């Protein structure tokens, strides 16, 4: 069992349960000890496969999934995920299927919504990428 199996289990649990995986839930899913999985979480964070909340082994981000509310969501049927940004909201639907992405309106007012149906996004719009690709990990919380 490698760190990559733990990473895959994190992603599977995010996708299937629409809740934030924990070391305990991943340990149960993989039949490992919680300590082993916490070590894997830290290793995965070191390699930028996931992001942990500072000083903890709690998952902050496993892109495109967010471990806590951000204002950006992606919904597919009854399941709702927190996303890290507008790109990640659409990316979640690219992974789980059609649904609705909700994002804060940078101009104020009601939230923005995009619907994905049969892989087509409506209405048209743009996502503003704030940080060049080369610098995505310089400050991942900002990115």
């Amino acid at each position, binding site marked *: 069992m490698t760190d990559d*199996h733990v990473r895959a289990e994190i992603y599977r649990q995010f996708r299937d349960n629409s809740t934030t995986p924990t070391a305990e839930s991943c340990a149960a899913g993989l039949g490992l000890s919680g300590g082993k999985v916490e070590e894997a979480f830290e290793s995965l964070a070191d390699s930028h*496969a996931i992001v942990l909340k500072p000083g903890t082994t709690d998952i902050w981000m*496993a892109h495109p999934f967010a471990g806590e509310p951000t204002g950006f969501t992606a919904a597919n049927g009854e399941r709702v995920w927190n996303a890290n940004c507008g*790109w990640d909201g659409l*990316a979640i639907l690219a992974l789980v299927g059609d649904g609705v992405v909700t994002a804060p309106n940078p101009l104020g007012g009601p939230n923005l919504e*995009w619907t994905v149906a049969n892989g087509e996004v409506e209405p048209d719009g*743009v*996502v503003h990428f704030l940080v060049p*690709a080369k610098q995505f990990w310089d400050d991942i919380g900002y990115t």
Partner: protein
Amino acid sequence: MVGVQKVLELGHLWYSGRFDPEWQRPPADDVVSMFADLGLVGPFWEI
């Protein structure tokens, strides 16, 4: 600024492998090629 349809496609290409334990982060040249396939070119999209 990137159009939402293209962002959806980028999301699939960027993230879909991560459920697979065998997935490995692609080398930088492959990432730049993936961006280019979507029309995302120029200094902003260099790795």
